[in-house]
């Protein structure tokens, strides 16, 4: 049985659920919006974890879940929770459920896509870049600094650079143009990440187990997710144009090193082994509006099921690859 965690109407979760149901698989949906009617008990003894999940009165043994697809949003921003007082019982209950759920997910013997620890590197893009480099990809030259002089020197050397958030807080990738360069003194307050702009076409790659699914992206904007807003023309996504079956090592083979890789949504070295399912294009969240305070400080997008607090993908119209898990089905079910 497969446990799906998140908001059922969110497109990736809905697609996974549909795929499982089409394949006559069993699944249980833990709808975060029903958090008040969810409970979880965990017991660990002699190196084994057992317990029970209660969803709207239905009881499920945790040991019966052999697969988990995780797409949780930050529970603080759930519509049912965000308006609650900090010390409200509903908020406390939500926290306890999520804490217990996450504790179980980290140690559950089930196939989990993906465990929070494996997704954690999204929280620091430069840290992730070091992991990506370690796995054999080129990465764009990156400078993180609070010194405008170093940025100008970097700009002179690279010719064209972009700036973007370092953390998991989603930001719009922008080219450092003359207007932004004139405001570089603002970075003295907080270091900012700058990267060499890499020419070429974006390729987003999802790996599922030992298979890679590539999607080429044509866009005039530095950040294809916001292409329509920035340029008036939406990005064109061409999925599955070069689907390949390969061992995970193929991503680290010498030819791969010719491809600059700017980020991944799951660290490659921690990739879960699962059977292949389907490629899922990036989910755009362009309907939400960031509120830049300065050109270099871009607050988090409004969190909603369509714009969860997880990092998206592109940061420039450049030759790059990214890999990660957006959807998964399980051996024996598809």
């Amino acid at each position: 049985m497969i446990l799906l965690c998140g908001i059922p109407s969110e497109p990736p979760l809905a697609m996974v659920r549909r795929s499982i149901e089409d394949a006559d698989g069993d699944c249980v949906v833990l709808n975060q919006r029903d958090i008040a009617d969810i409970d979880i008990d965990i017991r660990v003894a002699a190196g084994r974890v057992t317990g029970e999940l209660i969803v709207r009165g239905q009881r499920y043994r945790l040991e019966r879940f052999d697969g988990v697809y995780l797409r949780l949003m930050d529970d603080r921003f759930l519509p049912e929770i965000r308006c609650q007082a900090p010390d409200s019982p509903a908020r406390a209950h939500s926290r306890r459920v999520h804490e217990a759920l996450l504790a179980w997910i980290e140690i559950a013997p089930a196939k989990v896509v993906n465990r929070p620890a494996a997704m954690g590197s999204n929280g620091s893009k430069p840290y992730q870049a070091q992991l990506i480099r370690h796995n054999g990809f080129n990465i764009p030259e990156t400078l993180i600094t609070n010194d405008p002089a170093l940025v100008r020197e970097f700009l002179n050397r690279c010719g064209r650079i972009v700036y973007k958030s370092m953390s998991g807080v989603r930001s719009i990738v922008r080219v450092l143009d003359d207007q932004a360069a004139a405001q570089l003194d603002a970075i003295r307050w907080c270091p900012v990440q700058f990267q060499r702009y890499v020419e070429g076409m974006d390729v987003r790659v999802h790996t599922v187990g030992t298979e890679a699914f590539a999607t080429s992206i044509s866009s005039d904007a530095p950040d294809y997710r916001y292409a329509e807003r920035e340029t008036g023309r939406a990005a064109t996504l061409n999925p599955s144009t070069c689907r390949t079956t390969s061992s995970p090592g193929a991503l680290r083979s010498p030819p791969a090193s010719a491809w600059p890789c700017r980020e991944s949504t799951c660290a490659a070295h921690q990739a879960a082994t699962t059977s292949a399912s389907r490629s899922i294009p990036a989910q755009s969240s362009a309907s939400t509006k960031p509120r830049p305070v300065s050109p270099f400080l871009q607050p988090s997008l409004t969190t909603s099921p369509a714009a969860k607090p997880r990092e998206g993908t592109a940061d420039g119209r450049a030759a790059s690859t990214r890999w990660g898990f957006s959807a998964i089905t399980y051996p024996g079910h598809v």
Partner: protein
Amino acid sequence: MWLVLCDDLDASARWVYDGLRQRSVPAEFVPASVLSRAVRWDHRIDSEGASVDVILPDGRCITSAAVHGTLNRMVGLCPAPDYIASPDSDYALQELLAMYVSLLQCLPAPVLNRPTSQGLSGRVRYTPDWLILAARAGFATASYAVSSKGDDGCRDDDRLQITIPAAAKRHNVVVAAGRVFGDPLSARATAAACRLAMLAEVDLLGLRLATACDGGAWFEAADLYPDLRTGGRGLLDHLVGLTPQEPPT
């Protein structure tokens, strides 16, 4: 040079720094409040590698190329009050944290402990996670239960359903880069302690253990920020031995 990064009130880290200096090992002590007020950050990453150069408010320059060993006991950020008061502080603090993880990652080995995205000084784990790893490492473990049904007011430690024999002898040890320091342990418990640190992917780990009358080794708790003084001089000598000898300063 050894770099000692820690919270401002970390007496253990200070003890290590003093111990290194007494052994004529070049070392820099950088508490979190000093690091967070750095006047210049220069952190670079490219396909060839990564580096960091930081100029601290007291004028010291820490450059990763000069670092040959790091004791990393950073717990979190220590930003100035005006930073926290800013309307952009949530975003800025996330950015700073992301930068810290990256720059700690780029420091040359040995780094005790390397950062992870789940903790600046190694991955912070839930109690059930530690119990599973401890059992896998070869320790006997107490059972543990937690429920989301109502707040029982328990601290996490209290949720451990203690089955450790009351007469068991307690031990505090520190695992540092493959060796165990502190209270004497049996060979089996020593091997299990090293195995647990390896499974937890950390080079520095404090453990609270118990030995039952039948000699069985029980796991009680793990700590990424142990009191290093438990390890005594042996621990300091071991740290010094991890790095190439440098000219004394």
